[in-house]
């Protein structure tokens, strides 16, 4: 059935999305003719800019710097979130305290952490790292704690009946049932980390996607602002498709 196969391929290549994208790019191009390169650079200028940062290797330098900060800040948040999950498993009292703290962190603005980290860490790598850490911690941790709270009690009771030790129950029952929550939390957390660390990079550091975007604006190279925005989107999509979709598929093998 060729028609079915054609439709299948169309879906896999996101053909409708590509069609819509073509319309957007065309409109963008028409508007760029009217408003000029400072306000709205043409799609061709942006593409050329992307080619140049790829050719010079500048793209890796700034993306690497941003990813390093995300790695440290977000990685630290995941580690602490796991410890919070463990505490929530071991004691209902700790679970309550952790949940209250996370609620407070969750309602704190990104800007608070940026300003505080500038005061505490000055113009250094640690400002974006700390900001990323504080913003992603509640997202990842509240997912893990919720996962721990939702572990099927009937399965834990089964573990008690068969005299599994606390450690055996933890690895055989609690960890596997919490894993989907962890991956979901990490997925959202990583997206947030990229967005937040880039904002924090506007202040005080001389590398990273956030820095170079702001720098491009200052030297009136608007097309480079678009180039770096595009790089960010590509990094995010790649992480989603390669890392998180892969993890989700691996976890779903028993479903």
């Amino acid at each position, binding site marked *: 059935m060729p028609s079915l196969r054609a439709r299948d391929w169309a879906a896999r290549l996101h053909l409708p999305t590509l069609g819509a994208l073509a319309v957007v790019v065309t409109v963008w191009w028409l508007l760029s003719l009217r408003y000029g390169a400072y306000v709205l650079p043409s799609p061709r200028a942006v593409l050329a800019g992307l080619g140049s940062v790829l050719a010079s290797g500048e793209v890796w330098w700034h993306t690497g710097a941003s990813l390093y900060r995300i790695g440290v800040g977000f990685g630290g948040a995941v580690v602490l979130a796991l410890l919070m999950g463990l505490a929530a498993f071991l004691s209902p009292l700790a679970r309550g305290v952790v949940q209250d703290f996370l609620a407070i962190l969750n309602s704190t603005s990104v800007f608070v952490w940026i300003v505080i980290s500038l005061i505490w860490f000055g113009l250094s790598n640690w400002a974006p790292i700390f900001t990323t850490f504080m913003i992603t911690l509640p997202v990842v941790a509240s997912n893990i704690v919720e996962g721990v709270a939702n572990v099927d009690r009937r399965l834990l009771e*089964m573990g008690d009946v*068969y005299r599994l030790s606390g450690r055996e129950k933890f690895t055989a029952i609690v960890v596997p049932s919490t894993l989907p929550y962890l991956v979901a939390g990490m997925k959202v957390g990583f997206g947030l980390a990229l967005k937040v660390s880039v904002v924090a990079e506007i202040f005080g550091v001389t590398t990273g996607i956030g820095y170079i975007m702001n720098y491009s604006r200052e030297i009136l190279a608007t097309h480079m602002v678009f180039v770096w925005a595009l790089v960010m989107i590509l990094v995010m999509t790649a992480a989603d498709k390669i890392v998180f979709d892969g993890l989700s598929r691996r976890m779903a093998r*028993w*479903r």
Partner: protein
Amino acid sequence: MAVTLVVSGVGKDYLIPIIESVSFSVNAGEFVCLLGPNGCGKTTLLRIIGGIEPATRGSVTLGGQPVVGDGRHDRRLGVVFQEDRLLPWMTLRENVALVLKPLGMTAPERLAMADRHLVLAGLRGFEGYYPSRVSGGMRQRAAIARALAIEPELLLMDEPFGSLDAQNRRIMQKEVRRIWEQTGRTILFVTHAIEEAVAIGTTLIMLSARPSRIRETIRNDGAVDRAKLIDDLNVMIMEEVERQQGGSTT
């Protein structure tokens, strides 16, 4: 035959008394069915005997050792729950092997033991399947294999076939009877289905309406007329159901 399980004066109150006082003993190798109207505390009694929850009064001993209700015990007790309670992320083999860990076996020994009991429960060829890939009846078979694999002194079964359709239910009743004949384990089986109890049990214990006591203990060997026994039990259970309803409206 040696007495293995002794239940003496066991009672349980929640807000109201559920179980007034129940005493009975079970010989090794017996297949006891615990019958009674819905809500009379059958499951609660089974959970007390299994040490899953504490009794308000009375005591339970298994092989001479008291069963304590805090989950910390060192006897071998297999439980088949109403739901299969298999871990969905483990294969049937891994599910059975898991409960052998506290018994101090090596990993190859555990897997061999798991396979042996899965075959006994009629799951040859399905050892590597995840629970979501097999039918409800097969999941209950795996739960039975898990309970048997620890070579329990006592096997507790709490309406294990309640969620199966009529046909599967009959098949599983035959299977449990076959497994009992093959292994000689001591089984305490809770059910509210009279036909089921008469079909599989060697001793039937009928509980009264709430707060429950033992109404009747009946030996069910080849000598009894099964059709008449089913009729008698049906009359008894209807009387208890009426008493329970009458009691709750006054």
